[in-house]
């Protein structure tokens, strides 16, 4: 990029100076790229994010978010910050191992297509030599950048990330999201109501000019609902511990503003009798997680004011005791 440390310092100051008032959490509360390395503009990039050791946990969905954010930086820079990807389609997310606080995520993305309309990409994340997650055939529609954030602040931040990198450790976790269980039929379907908070630090970062509940936090809650449901099926012995193996057909259709009330549903779909390729892959490649076997398929949906705002399918696998 040909950017010097002095430039980076200037960029950091600029990022501060153009940061919207009252958004001290900007580039902190929901930002998961500390530094961008090996950038091939518009084509590919690698990046890193240090998961603060002080956190109790770091959800796999946030690893997906980090990978998506790296792709977003490459895409936004490619179109001179006229647009930014908002909402998302992820054809396949493979959960291979769990991240842990204190680890450094090594992110990589390949941009398959990028213009003012959309970015299509794939990506993966490693930590400690173990592949944690893989994103396949993701698509982010581009919307006008200025509706969501200050383009000049984003450009300055990008320059900083590409140079010296941003200070690590500014992410302090996500406060629990209020989720109230609804009508559930064991082994068949589960429902819950998710109350998007009226205010939360992550809204200052996602996004300063138009706060939107991050889709990855919704997906995280949907996965939790699905795991609870999967654990009640007769597909495996009672007490079996389960984990997400693969999420497909993720489609986010609408913005979820602060204070939204979302009706979540999870419904069992026909199960596969044999271990899926992904479950088998997880078993063979994951050093951090217990190996998995067999799979249950669950359809997930979220509605807001009776309109479907998100849908996905989740393949759940059983953890095999080690």
């Amino acid at each position: 990029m040909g950017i010097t440390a002095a430039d980076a310092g200037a960029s950091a100051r600029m990022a501060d100076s153009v940061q919207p008032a009252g958004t001290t959490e900007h580039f902190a509360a929901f930002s998961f790229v500390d530094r961008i390395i090996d950038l091939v503009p518009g084509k590919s990039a690698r990046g890193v994010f240090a998961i603060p050791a002080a956190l109790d946990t770091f959800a796999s969905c946030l690893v997906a978010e980090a990978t998506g954010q790296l792709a977003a930086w490459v895409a936004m820079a490619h179109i001179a910050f006229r647009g930014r990807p908002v909402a998302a389609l992820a054809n396949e997310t493979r959960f291979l191992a769990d991240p842990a606080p204190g680890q450094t995520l090594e992110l990589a993305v390949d941009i398959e297509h990028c213009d003012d309309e959309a970015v299509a990409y794939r990506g993966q994340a490693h930590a400690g030599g173990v592949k944690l997650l893989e994103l396949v055939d993701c698509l982010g529609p581009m919307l006008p950048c200025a509706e969501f954030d200050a383009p000049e602040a984003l450009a300055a931040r990008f320059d900083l990330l590409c140079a010296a990198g941003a200070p690590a450790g500014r992410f302090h976790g996500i406060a629990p999201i209020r989720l109230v269980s609804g009508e559930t039929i064991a082994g068949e379907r589960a429902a819950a109501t998710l109350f998007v908070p009226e205010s939360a630090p992550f809204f200052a970062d996602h996004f300063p000019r138009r706060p939107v509940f991050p889709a990855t936090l919704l997906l995280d809650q949907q996965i939790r609902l699905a795991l609870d449901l999967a654990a009640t099926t007769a597909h495996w012995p009672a007490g079996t511990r389960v984990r997400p193996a693969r999420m497909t057909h993720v489609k986010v259709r609408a913005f979820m503003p602060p204070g939204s009330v979302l009706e979540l549903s999870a419904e069992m779909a026909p199960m596969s009798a044999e271990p899926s390729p992904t479950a088998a892959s997880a078993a063979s490649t994951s050093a951090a997680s217990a190996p998995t076997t067999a799979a249950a398929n669950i359809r997930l949906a979220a509605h807001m004011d009776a309109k479907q705002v998100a849908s996905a399918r989740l393949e759940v696998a059983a953890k095999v005791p080690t």
Partner: protein
Amino acid sequence: MAQAQFSKEEIDAVFPAVAATMADALGCDVEEVKPDASLIEDLGAESIDFLDMVFRLERAFKVKIPRGKIVENARGTLSEAEFEQHGIVTEAGMVQLRAYMSEVPEARFKTPMKVKDIPRLFTPETFCKLVIGAQREVKAGG
């Protein structure tokens, strides 16, 4: 641009894969994807679904589908000014549109028709024609 013609055989050849791709994108059964179904009215497609379908079709058929190609194709030999005036499809434009979207039942062609409402006419067969056109361009270029 000359008005593209598509034979039934050409459409039949790509339809199964187009229908499967659309069913996957829309989360519906492939049996629901009829050639003349309205993607918006009958299958509940939204703008994000159209984006999804175009990218899926590009991957499935290994072709590039330029954005806005459907309306451009539908316009045929007409200039933009001949096709629409102030966002409304002209009489000549409607003739061209009916010819290009021959699979769409007549009752769906409302007049006056706004250009922004043309996507309401889109059917799986419309996308078959899009794919066939892109395949022809690949052959012509190769």
